């Protein structure tokens, strides 16, 4: 599969990309973030409607930007799970129809494999084995990547995703959506040690994450302070909360490295854009003499280039084997 058209609609970004080997010839993302901001979070029905409006122009833009057309594409790849089912269905119906009407193979991709596979892309592609920490509004995942075509989940969140926790904290502090960048901006002027947050570390040495306790602690802190003092202390609250989230992420990464044998780490997902997380992960990897691949920002947030990258190492289904293929929420 030399040239792949990849499609991603699992959440609130409508994405298409053209891949040639480990190089993205184009990577088009039409973000719905501003649309959903007015609801204070992602509304599935709104997202599905928007995907339907955007998907074909986004695909046209990806083909054109990639200097190609559908006839010169060897396969169509698409995210089939996990995600918002109504949103996934727009991408899957579109991808299946494009492939079937031209007799091309279809490559179904797991969205999380996509985030892992973002590390395989240029510039400076990373080859397995490596540890991948994927942190976003939808996922918090520590994955052991030993081959291109698969990954093993070493740890994941038991409740909220890290980005989701940041979103909720931002809403609680009246900082808007998406929460990650808003918390980071506010935290810059705050003292991260001013409000002690609970440390969620299981004694058994597990690698799973938990952020609901942090959220509860913040709810209590805000309740104790009252609206006026919360506003006064907002920077300190944001800094303390961000410190606790990043602290837990890096602590679990440290634990995973302690288990040994890893020579490289990939940091990806939307929250990987967080400066504090990047700084702490960089320090940890330097201390351990491990290579750290910071996935570039445009490949960190949801995008279709990463789906195409995973597709290069997944099993294509020849026409017409995929006609009944369905999307799955999980």
């Amino acid at each position, binding site marked *: 599969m030399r040239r792949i058209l990849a499609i991603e609609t699992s959440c609130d970004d409508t994405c298409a990309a053209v891949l040639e080997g480990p190089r993205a010839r184009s990577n088009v993302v039409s973000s719905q973030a501003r649309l959903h901001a*007015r*609801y204070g979070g992602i*509304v599935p*029905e*709104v997202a*599905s*409607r928007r995907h*339907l*409006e955007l*998907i*074909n122009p986004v*695909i*046209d833009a990806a083909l054109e930007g990639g200097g190609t057309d*559908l006839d010169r594409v060897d396969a169509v790849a698409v995210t089939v799970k996990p995600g918002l089912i*109504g949103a996934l*269905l*727009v991408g*899957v*119906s*579109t*991808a*299946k*129809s*494009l492939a*079937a*009407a*031209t007799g091309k193979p279809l490559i179904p991709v797991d969205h999380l494999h996509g985030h892992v596979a973002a590390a395989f892309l240029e510039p400076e592609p990373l080859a397995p084995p490596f540890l991948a920490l994927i942190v976003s509004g939808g996922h918090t995942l520590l994955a052991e990547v030993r081959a291109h075509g698969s990954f093993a989940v070493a740890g994941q969140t038991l409740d909220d995703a890290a980005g989701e926790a940041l979103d909720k904290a931002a809403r609680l502090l009246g900082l808007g959506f998406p929460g990650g960048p808003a918390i980071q901006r506010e935290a810059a002027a705050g003292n991260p040690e001013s409000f002690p947050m609970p440390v969620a570390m299981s004694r058994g040495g597990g690698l799973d994450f938990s952020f609901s306790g942090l959220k509860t602690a913040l709810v209590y802190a805000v309740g104790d302070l009252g609206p006026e003092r919360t506003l006064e202390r907002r920077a300190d609250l944001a800094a303390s909360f961000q410190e606790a989230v990043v602290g837990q992420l890096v602590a679990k990464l440290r634990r995973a490295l302690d288990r040994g044998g890893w020579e490289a780490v990939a940091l990806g997902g939307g929250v990987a854009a967080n400066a504090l997380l990047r700084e702490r992960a960089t320090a940890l990897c330097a201390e351990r003499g491990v290579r750290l691949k910071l996935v570039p920002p445009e490949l960190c947030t949801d995008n279709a280039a990463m789906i195409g990258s995973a597709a290069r190492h997944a099993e294509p289904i020849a026409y*017409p084997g995929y*006609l*009944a*293929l*369905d*999307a799955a929420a999980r």
Partner: protein
Amino acid sequence: MILGFDTATGITAVAVADRGAVVSEEWAGPGPDGRPAAARELLGMIDAAVRGAGGWERIRTVAVGRGPGSFTGLRIAISTARALSQARRIPVVGIDTTAALAAGIAVDRVAAGGARVGVVDARRGEVFAAADRGEGAGEPVVCRPRELAEALGGGLAGATAAGDGAVRFRSEIEAAGFAVPVDEDPANRLSAARICGLAAKMGRGEARFPAVVTPKYMRRPDAERWRERDHRS
């Protein structure tokens, strides 16, 4: 030839027609779990219909049911139609699902001067409906079944109403003065041949490439309504 399909109601319907003659017509009910099976069934049925008609080269127009009906159903059908259009460079025309249902009621079954009304189950105790008084179906409305006659603007004495919504709310709709065919009457089941038929009547001029067809949701997302309510209070 025209390829027509609709997944706005609980069934998946696909047909191919050539100059007014139906070449093939298929439909599939909900899956064993009772949920609409369009995501799994639609493309395979389209693929078989197109191959049976001699391949994509023979298909000059795609006609798609644009609702009103199930939001997910509309998106599956319309994203499929748009992608087929994008891949094959063929124009698409959108047909109201309610109009196709109205057109499925045989004219000779309607009392002289009586209208034909297509009724889709809109959930939440409501229906989507449109009346054809002999000049094609009008714009669909959304209403409670017992308010069907007024919602459609009255003057519907002797009208026949058909569709999954007419079957589901038979007693209210009959009490409102409409005749409803027996449950198993084919008129109550959306026919993709009617989608093709209405598309043929509209003529090639109505079909567009690139496709511009959009769903007729008839309802805004709940979140939007809640947001407005919150802002008012």
